[in-house]
């Protein structure tokens, strides 16, 4: 069982409260996922020519400053690093591709949780409220955020298997459900040049959508293609640098509730997570229809 939440702000005046609202939403999904939680927050974009990466090493005493120093010296660029729990936020004055290549070559013990210009990703074990507190979610301002709470039923509680999955710059996907054709799809995606970090079915979906978006599909087109190519049960919520999307499979047995007003769009597995949003009493609330793609864009 899992819990999903997502909040997309249409009214810029609410941006300072993004983290606070998403924390409340995430806590609302504690019973659906008390083992671990993950969040992707779109906030504080870096200046042009810079990139932002969220990195992970289980050891809280990991030498992040040294990593940033070595990276800066090797690529001859400015770097900045700050530690949050067993994650580190790295900002470098170069493209994310160059940083990722350097990390792959020089730091095998570091996992890249997410990258791009504005997305930050944190995943940790424990109750959603504790994870949110540890990474200071409440104080994060921004445009949109997606969260996931996990109750492990079949595999170990690790950050590796936790959502959100982040297959491309500023893109993340959370999934409630299970896919039945992920092995074939993984093989096919590998042939198209995609590489995988885990054996997780949700990662296959994430990389599938990243592949479609990379081909030039719009968010809506990518998700509609997924309705044809992905077999199984799913409620997906996806974030891109300026977009937010929800889609469910044709049977729609994995729960989802959408709410929208002039100021925001919110998605959650259950209404409990939406109950405290501003003006929720007057928002439009509905259950997303099966095999129907819902997208929103900032522009």
């Amino acid at each position, binding site marked *: 069982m899992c819990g999903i939440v997502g909040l997309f702000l249409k009214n810029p005046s609410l941006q300072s409260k993004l983290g606070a609202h998403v924390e409340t939403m995430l806590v*609302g999904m504690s019973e659906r996922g008390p083992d671990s939680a993950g969040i992707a927050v779109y906030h504080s974009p870096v200046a042009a020519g810079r990139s932002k990466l969220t990195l992970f090493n289980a050891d809280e005493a990991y030498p992040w400053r040294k990593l940033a120093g070595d990276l800066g010296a090797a690529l001859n660029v400015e770097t900045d690093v700050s530690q949050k729990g067993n994650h580190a936020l790295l900002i470098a004055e170069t493209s994310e591709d160059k940083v990722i290549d350097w990390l792959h070559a020089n730091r095998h013990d570091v996992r890249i949780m997410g990258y791009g210009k504005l997305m930050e990703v944190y995943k940790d074990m424990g109750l959603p409220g504790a994870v949110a507190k540890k990474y200071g979610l409440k104080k994060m301002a921004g445009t949109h955020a997606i969260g996931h709470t996990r109750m492990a039923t079949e595999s170990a509680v690790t950050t590796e298997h936790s959502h959100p999955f982040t297959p491309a710059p500023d893109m993340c996907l959370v999934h409630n459900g299970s896919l039945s054709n992920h092995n074939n799809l993984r093989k096919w995606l590998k042939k198209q040049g995609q590489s995988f970090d885990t054996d997780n079915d949700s990662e296959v979906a994430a990389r599938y959508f990243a592949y479609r978006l990379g081909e030039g599909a719009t968010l809506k087109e990518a998700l509609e293609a997924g309705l044809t190519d992905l077999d199984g049960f799913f409620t997906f919520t996806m974030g891109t640098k300026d977009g937010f999307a929800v889609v469910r499979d044709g049977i*729609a*047995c994995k*729960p989802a*509730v959408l709410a929208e007003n002039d100021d925001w769009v919110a998605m959650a597995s*259950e*209404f*409990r*997570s*939406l*109950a*405290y949003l501003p003006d*929720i*009493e007057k928002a439009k*609330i*509905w*259950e997303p*229809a*099966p095999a129907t793609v819902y997208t929103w864009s900032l522009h």
Partner: protein
Amino acid sequence: MNVIDLAKTPLREVNSRLQKLPKDTNERLWKLVNVHGEHACAVGLTQPIEVQIEGHIGYYCGGMNQQATIVVNGQCGVGLAENIMSGEVRVKGNASAAAGATGQGGLIVIEGDAGTRCGISMKGVDIVVGGSVGAMSAFMAQAGSLVVCGDAGANLGDSLYEARIYVQGKVESLGADCVEKKMTPHHVAKLEKLLKRAGIGANPNKFKRYGSARKLYNFHVDNVDAY
């Protein structure tokens, strides 16, 4: 009226209090506030009391209801009035999936839309939906009536037994063994009575009736090779 604030009283205590009311109770009108999407609210009630729920509510609201009248002034989650036996459950907003699942009697009124599988396996309950219903509604429905004033999603009435379905709007598609049937004066009268009971102002003459072709649930000798 008794008002209970769920921000102060735990749900379990609220349900237990309502469930334990004696037959001759004078406390017949209750209001629940600050419900914030709690699951299994006002379930298992057995006395003819009225419970008003202010705000949006979670899963299985009014489940197993007997005799009580429950009114939700908001939206509700999955499994509204699941296995209702008697009484009435009314939602002023929308309901999520599987509203009225396995309901044996009583009346459910959803003034807005209902999600997928509305009235799945219903066994005698009457469900009146002011708006539209999602896909697979009245799946394996056995008895009772499902009235849809709006449209119905795909595979309406799949594997239907003897329940009656009335739809005013469009039906995306009919499920296996579900067919359109003649709307006789007898059915119009029945529907009129039901709409009146539900307080929904629709014209019964504008509805179409759907039911079981009865080809699926009886063994047919032509199919013997399939076994």
